[in-house]
């Protein structure tokens, strides 16, 4: 996919561009707000990564300008600002996700890929299927290989999120934010414990595991390869 990076810090930009290219994406880069907005209006990007503070025109102003023009390209806001309110302000300006610096590259990659996918399949689904794992969203039932699996409500939501992002990396922070609506890092890595519970229920007793740990990044639910 084609990614636009608007970032003024040369080190951060180089790191982002290099990482994204190595992950197989096409990257355009602008190091100031005005050039950034010019590139953004070309409309050929699948997702944009925009720094909050930029010379020329600040990141939020760019997003607002784009949204006013009716462009719905997903935007991930990057910010060095530790302020918690900033996140709300960024999302209100039309941003789709918000990541505070410093971040792990894996985190950023997982998030922009999830953002790019959001545009694709927005037809409401009633069932999610990954290999022989099936989730009925209406009856709220889960089966694997025809065998029924009992899940707690939160485990159901966790699995639903993983299945909706099947084949892609989902980070712990993404899970905390989207499944628990928690926007802070817990001191203990509680997510790992929940994942291992879920793994017990969906993978135990089956020859092929579906839920995989991605080292240094998070988790991924995908059929055996």
């Amino acid at each position: 996919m084609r990614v636009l990076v608007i970032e003024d810090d040369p080190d951060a930009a180089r790191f982002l561009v290099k990482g994204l290219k190595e992950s197989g994406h096409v990257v355009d880069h602008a190091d100031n707000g005005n050039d950034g907005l010019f590139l953004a209006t070309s409309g050929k990007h699948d997702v944009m990564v925009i720094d909050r503070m930029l010379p020329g025109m600040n990141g939020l102003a760019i997003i607002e300008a784009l949204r006013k023009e009716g462009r719905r390209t997903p935007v991930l806001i990057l910010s060095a600002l530790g302020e918690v309110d900033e996140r709300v302000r960024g999302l209100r300006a039309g941003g789709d996700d918000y990541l505070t610096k410093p971040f792990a590259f894996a985190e950023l990659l997982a998030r922009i890929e999830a953002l790019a996918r959001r545009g694709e399949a927005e037809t409401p689904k009633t069932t999610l299927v990954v290999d022989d794992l099936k989730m009925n969203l209406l009856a709220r039932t889960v089966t694997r290989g025809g065998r029924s699996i009992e899940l707690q409500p939160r485990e159901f939501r966790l699995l639903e999120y993983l299945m909706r992002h099947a084949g892609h990396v989902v980070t712990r922070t993404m899970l905390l934010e989207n499944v628990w609506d928690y926007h802070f890092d817990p001191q203990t890595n509680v997510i790992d414990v929940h994942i291992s519970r879920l793994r017990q229920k969906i993978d135990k007793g089956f020859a092929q595991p579906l839920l995989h740990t991605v080292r240094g990044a998070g988790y991924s639910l995908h059929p055996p390869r």
Partner: protein
Amino acid sequence: MRLHLFRTSTFRFALVYVGLFATSALLLLGFIYVTTAGYASRQTDEVILAQIAGLAEQYRQRGLDGVATTIAQRAARNPRGHAVYLLADPARRRIVGNLDRWPREAVEPGWVEFLIEDPDTQGEAYRARAQFVQLAGGFHLLVGQDVQEQQRHQTLMISAMAWGGALTLALALIGGLLMSRATLQRVETINRASREIIRGDLSRRMPTRGTGDEFDQLAENLNAMLDQIARLMDGIRQVSDNIAHDLRTPLTRLRSRLEAARLSQADPAMRATIDELIADADALLSTFNALLRIAEIEAGRRRAAFEAVDLAEIARDAVELYEPVAQDKRQTIAADLASGAVAKGDRHLLAQAVANLLDNAIKYSPEGARIAVTTTVLPAGPVLSVADNGPGIPAEFRDKAVRRFFRLETSRSTPGTGLGLSLVSAVAKLHGARLALEDNAPGLRVTLAFEQKQGGAAIPI
């Protein structure tokens, strides 16, 4: 806490003022009484004495007959009038005068007061004051004046003065109350603004009326002081933001370079080392982020995001998040969550505070411990508590436990930044809630007591 009218110094000043005022009013009234009523009675006495002097002169010059004639004339002019004349022989038998007989009260020479029956008004008596003198030859002379009217005046005056005095006192008291209440209200507006500021709203200023009076001056001076504090705090914030930013940027770069190195590294042993380095950088960064977040909360800039938050719901979510972690340590979490425990606050911060408390309880309690999360609704406001039956915190360390980087020696080996309770404390302070660390006998019990009423909240220490 709010000032109570009767315990204020202005009210006491007003009371002292009322006392002084009452004393001077009494002195003034006494003076008026002495100079008016006293003057009238002195005048009467002088008239009587003058008449006696005149009659005594008559007696000396013209003898008894002369006196008798004069008295007869005067009595005739005054048959039942205001003047009393009576001349009697040594046996006190009436010779001449406008009294029928010698009054019983007049025994010794000198001033005497007695009642005279008034035949015209049927049994009505009036009071007279007279001087009784003995003339040479044993004759008795009584000259006096009706003082009934004068005495009526006197009593009227005394009662008028008593009422006047009481009214003055009452008015002074009401005036004092109103005055001290007005003063109190101005002091209270300053206090209210101060409480808001203490709670973190440093942008607030003392209200002024623009009259330039002493309260305005006080408020302006306080405002100037607050401006100074705000400037200093901004300076400190700038410095700490700069430090955080300056250190965070190279740390971030370090982390990205490690990540980049890891991507291009094929040797698994090297990759493992880099993973450890990244984990170290992350630990440093998370401490930094926690510090910055606490600083941000303490700056009190998040109050705008306040909404009604159900503490039971927050606690239920946190328990649900941590239950598997506790189960791995064979610990149990008992939740007793009363509904209606609603506090005004920031949902995300409260969630983080409760999560930190649960995290601590699980981390510092041994295997098999029992943890209890409760929300209760007290008359003063909702209370949330997290208790465990672990080792607890010795009483002498409980105050220090909320300080940044404080860790009990025994828990040094446990992972953590030592910032968990500091964050809870900052969140409590932002919400005007009281954070208490208590002995759960055995174990630790942490309670967050919120004030239901917004605005009149207690100031946590």
